[in-house]
C-alpha cells in the first residue's frame, strides 16, 4: 500500500512548464525543478505530458503498456505513476498516445469544461504537495486547459527574438483566457553570456516583473543529462547548473 506522503498543509499546487517554442529547455527545467523541490522535502509528482517522453527518458522510466491518453484524461492515473530513483519524487510517464491528447480533448463532451486537468490529478491530491507538468510545445486546446488549471506557469525564454515572441504570445493567451499575468514566471534559459544578443536581450527585458532574476546558463552538463539520465543535481550536486536550478526554484516558490 502506498504511504500518504504529502507533508505540507497547503493544497497540492500545479506548476506547468510551458512554452509554445520548442528547444528552450522546458524538459530540463521540469526535471531539475522537480528534483530540487523534492530535495526540499516536498512530495512531488512530475507529469510528462509530451509524447516525446524526454522527461521519462531522463528518469529511465517507461510507461505501462495499458496506459493511454484516454485513461489520462479520465483521471485513471494512480496505477501508472512510477517511483523515480529519488526520495519524494514520482513520475507519471508520457505515453505515445499522448500525441492525440488534443484530439481526445476536442472530442470530449465537456471540452470547454476547464476542470479537466484538475480532475485528472484529484485522485492524488492528498499524496503530493506539488505536481509539475512538462508540457508539449505549440498553443493548442490542451494548452488552454493547462494555462487555466496551473497555479504557476513557468516559461523558459532563450534570450533571442523568437523566444521573446513566444513569451508575448503566452501573455496574450493568458489575457484572452482571463488568467492573471502574475501566474506566469519567465526565466532566461540557455544563456550564453559571450553572445551580445543574449546580453542585450536580457538587459532589455529583465526589468519586467514577469521575469525571474535567476538565469540558467547554457552548459554541457545540462546537455549531458541525456547521457547520465538523471537531474544535474543528482550527477553533481554543486555544479553550476544544479545551483542555478536550485536558485530558480527558490525564487519561483518565494514569488508564487
Amino acid at each position, binding site marked *: 500500500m*502506498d504511504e500518504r*506522503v504529502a507533508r505540507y498543509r497547503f493544497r497540492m499546487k500545479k506548476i506547468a512548464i510551458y512554452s509554445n517554442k520548442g528547444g528552450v529547455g522546458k524538459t530540463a527545467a521540469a526535471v531539475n525543478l522537480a528534483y530540487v523541490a523534492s530535495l526540499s522535502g516536498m*512530495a512531488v509528482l512530475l507529469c510528462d505530458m509530451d509524447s516525446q517522453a524526454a522527461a521519462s527518458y531522463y528518469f*529511465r522510466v517507461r510507461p*505501462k503498456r495499458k496506459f493511454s491518453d484516454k485513461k489520462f484524461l479520465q483521471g485513471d492515473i494512480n496505477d501508472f*505513476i512510477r*517511483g523515480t530513483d529519488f*526520495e*519524494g519524487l*514520482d513520475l507519471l510517464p508520457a505515453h505515445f498516445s499522448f500525441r492525440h491528447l488534443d484530439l481526445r480533448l476536442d472530442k470530449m463532451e465537456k471540452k470547454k469544461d476547464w476542470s479537466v486537468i484538475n480532475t485528472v490529478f484529484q485522485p492524488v491530491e492528498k499524496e503530493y504537495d506539488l505536481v509539475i507538468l512538462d508540457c508539449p510545445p505549440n498553443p493548442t486546446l490542451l494548452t488552454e486547459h493547462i494555462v487555466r488549471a496551473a497555479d504557476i506557469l513557468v516559461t523558459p525564454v532563450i534570450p533571442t527574438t523568437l523566444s521573446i515572441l513566444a513569451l508575448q504570445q503566452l501573455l496574450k493567451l493568458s489575457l484572452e483566457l482571463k488568467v492573471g499575468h502574475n501566474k506566469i514566471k519567465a526565466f532566461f534559459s540557455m544563456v550564453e553570456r559571450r553572445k551580445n544578443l543574449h546580453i542585450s536581450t536580457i538587459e532589455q527585458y529583465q526589468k519586467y516583473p514577469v521575469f525571474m532574476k535567476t538565469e540558467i546558463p547554457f552548459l554541457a552538463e545540462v546537455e549531458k543529462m541525456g547521457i547520465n539520465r538523471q537531474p544535474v543535481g543528482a550527477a553533481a550536486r554543486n555544479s553550476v547548473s544544479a545551483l542555478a536550478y536550485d536558485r530558480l526554484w527558490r525564487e519561483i516558490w518565494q514569488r508564487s
Partner: protein
Amino acid sequence: MKSGYRMFIVTGAGDFDRLLKEIHSLFPLQEEAAFDIDEWYMDTFDWRLCSKGFVFRKTDGRFVLASLSGNLQEETEGPQKPKLFWQDFPEGAVRDRLADISGVRALCPLFRVVGRRRHFRLYNKDEKTVLRLRLETGDLYRGDEKRGAFPPCLHLEGIRGYYNPFQRLSEELKAKGCRELEAGETFFDLFLRQLQMRPDCKKTQFFFGAGQTTNQAISSIGLALLDAMQRNLPGVIDDIDPEFLHDFRVSIRRTRALLSQFKNEIPPGQTGIFQKEFQWLGTVAGPVRDLDVCLQKEENYRLLLQEGLHPGLSLLMEKIAELRKGQWLIMRDHLRSSRTGDLFANWQDFLTSLPTRIQTPPGQAPCRKAARKVVRRCFQRLIKDAAAVTKGENQDISMHKLRIQAKKFRYMAEFFRSFFSPADMDILVGELRGLQDELGDFNDLAVQIRRFQDYKAALSLEQAAGEALDELLLRLADERKRLLKRCLKRCGKFTKNDRNHLF
C-alpha cells in the same frame, strides 16, 4: 516513493554474501552505501511511547520519533543528557508528540544497538532502480553490557509502479528460509525479545479462583505491590521524574488499604507493625510529593495571575524548588535507611510464608467470601460518605473522608475484580474514576492552599514573590469554591443509582 515494505529475518548463520549473490542471480544488484549504526532507544519507565506504538531513538546526535508501523518518522535535535523530558527538545512535531505521550515522565535509555547497515538497489535493464534492500546486522547492549547479536534483518522497500520485483523477491526469500515478520510484529519486538525485556505498560491485574484462600490472595497482591515499590524506589532515590514517587506512594497506600481491610484474616500482632511502618513510609514521602504537585502546577498558576505578577511567581517557584531539594534529601536518607530495607525484607518474608500459615483459620478460608464482604463493606461506606457530603455536613472533613473511602473501594474492587461481573465492575469503576478525579483536584487544591500558607510563614520571600503568593491564595480559594460545587454535583450523581445488587 515507497510502495510496500517487508522485513525478513535472515536465517543461516550470517552467510549474507551468499544470500546477496543469490539475489544478484535474480536481479542486478548494487551496493549503494554502508553506514555504522549506533542507536540508543529510549522510553519512559512505564513504556508510554511503546504502548502508544512509538519508538524513540538517538542516533548521531539526532533524535528520531517513529511509529512502530513505520508510517511516521520525525526528527529533531536535542541535548546530550542521560535523562530527557519533552521540554528539552526544540519546538516542533517531536516535542508536541512527546508532550502528549510522555507527560511528566523522563525518557530514559532502554538499550543500545551497535552494528552496520548496508543499502542496496535492484535495477532493471534500463538501470532504473526497481527495489531497495537494507541489511542490518549488529549487537545489542544494555548499558555497557553486550547482550549478543540481534537477528540480521533484511528490509525490502518497494518502489511505486514496480510491484513485481518486490513480490518476486519476497517469495524467493521465503523459499530460502528467511522468516517474514508476522502481522503486528516489529523490529522493536525482536530487540526486546533478544534482550528478554517486556514492556510493562499495563496495570497489574489479579485473577483469583474460587479455591484460593484469603492468605494466598493477600500474599499475591501484597507481593505485587511490594514489587512495584521496589521497582520505583531507585527512580525515587535518583530523582528521575516525579512519577516514580507518585507510583511508589500509590503502592504504599494500596498496601495499607489491604492491611486495614483484612486485619481479621491476617495473623494478630502482625498487621499493627506493618501498618505503622507503611504509614511512616507514606509520611516520609508526603512532603516531596506535595511540593512536586505545586511545581507541576506552575503553568496553571500562571494562567490564574495577571502578567505583572508572573516574575513574582517565578521567584516563588524557585523558592519551592529549593525547598523540595531539601525535603528530597531528607526523604532519600529515609528511603536508603535500614528501617526501609528491614520493612521491605520483613514484609516480603511475611507475605511469602503467609499462604502456609495455618494458625489463622479465617485466612485459610476461601477468599471469595471474604473478598466480596470487604468490597461490599467498602462500597456501603462509600455511599454513606458520599451522602454525608451531599447533605452539607462539615464539607471539608466529609469530602476528605469520601476521597479516602473512594480510594479504598477502588483498590479493593480492582484487586478482587475476578469475583464480580467484569462488565458491571468496569462501569462502576469508570463512574468512580470521574468522582475521584474531581475529589482529587479538590484535595490537591486544599493541600496547595495549606502548603502555600505554611510557606508564606516559613519562607523569607521577596516582595514580588509575596505579592504573587497573596494573589495566588485568593485565586485558589475562588477555584476551590468552584471545584466544591462540581464535586457536590458529581457526588449527587454517583449516589443516585442503586448498585447494591452488584455485591
